[in-house]
């Protein structure tokens, strides 16, 4: 298991990894960035919602 993972990481950090197979990994990274951005925004909303919920809780008690 270990050596395979190791090889995988070596491949990942090779200078030309992102340029291999017609630079398809650039597209993967771009779509991942979009996803992480949206996820970050959702997490922020989550935190805001939690604040509101806490406010309601403290208000009821």
């Amino acid at each position, binding site marked *: 298991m270990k050596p395979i993972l190791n090889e995988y990481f070596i491949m990942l950090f090779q200078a030309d990894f992102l340029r291999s197979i017609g630079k398809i990994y650039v597209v993967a990274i771009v779509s991942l960035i979009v996803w992480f951005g*949206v996820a970050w925004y959702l997490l922020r909303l989550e935190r805001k919602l939690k604040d509101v919920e806490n406010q309601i809780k403290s208000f009821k008690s």
Partner: protein
Amino acid sequence: MERLKNLFSGLKWWKWAVLLIMPYVILMGFLVPLGQGITSITPGSTATGANINFRISAYNSQFSPDKSNTAWLKYHDLHLPAKLVKVLSPQEAEVIFDIPVLPDKSVKFADLSLIINTPEGPAVLPSAVSLRNIALDSTTIINEVWSDNKLNINKEANFNYPFRNLMAETIRNIYFHVPLWFAMTFVFMFSVFYSIRYLRKKDINDDQKALSLIAAGMLFGILGCITGAMWAKYTWGQYWSFDVKQNMAAISLLIYSGYFLLRKSLSDPDAKSRIGNIYSIFAFCMLIPLIFIIPRRYDSLHPGNGGNPALGADDLDNTMRTVFYPAVIAYICLGFWLAELNYRIIKIKNKIESHETYSK
């Protein structure tokens, strides 16, 4: 089953649009193959009078010696057929040309494009060969001639995206990066609509709507900058090439971050929303020349600059349109969805706060 029904009940149509179109965009964006394209040619230069043997390697191609393949060298309207196309492997071939003198003797150097025509469709390499146009001595006789007849090129046989040399597979980023900007502009436009409505009717909800729309637009703008930088690194060579559109994007983000700074710096809640909305209207109108007029006056690495309209036929063919426009709609709806969630949270918060002040 009941639970699933509850999950989707009461969803507005534009939320359905996000849920349905996004998978379509992702699937189409990643699964539809690229058309064939020529990646390299050796030698890269030649002179007239030569009997030359170009070795080309191609991407995503299925060259086969059993099928009829043809090739041309093209210079403006003139083209020269290859004497022979010899297929070495599905991705490699040799093309043999006898090159006569160009009819226009005054041209010293000419950039020729190479077109190869296979049953699957054509592949083009723009400015593939640089040709030195010299007069021939009488001993070399070449039967070929440059002609300007219509080229007989096969139609694209498969459903695929066009191959562009610098971009290769990253042409798919058009579905993930470009709609971010469309969505940002659209969301900002709607925020201006709510700002104006706030100033007319003084309904605090409109102000909160404008605020959350601007927040969602900012998210898209920031993502657009980051993804654009990533794409630029692997096509133009640098993360930030000080291209005019990149600068404009950065400046529009600066202008809108000024909006949040302004709101932070005002203490009175009424002044906060009033002045914030006035600034956002002013800022958006100042943004219009920044986005739509000025970039066209400058040379840019982006397509659609230096006078030509954006997204012409060269940048976006019909196959890509079938995915690109749905992607734009999906991103806009996603922006609205994110903004709406934010707005609802803000609204509840305000209600609680006003309730608390009442009860005290």
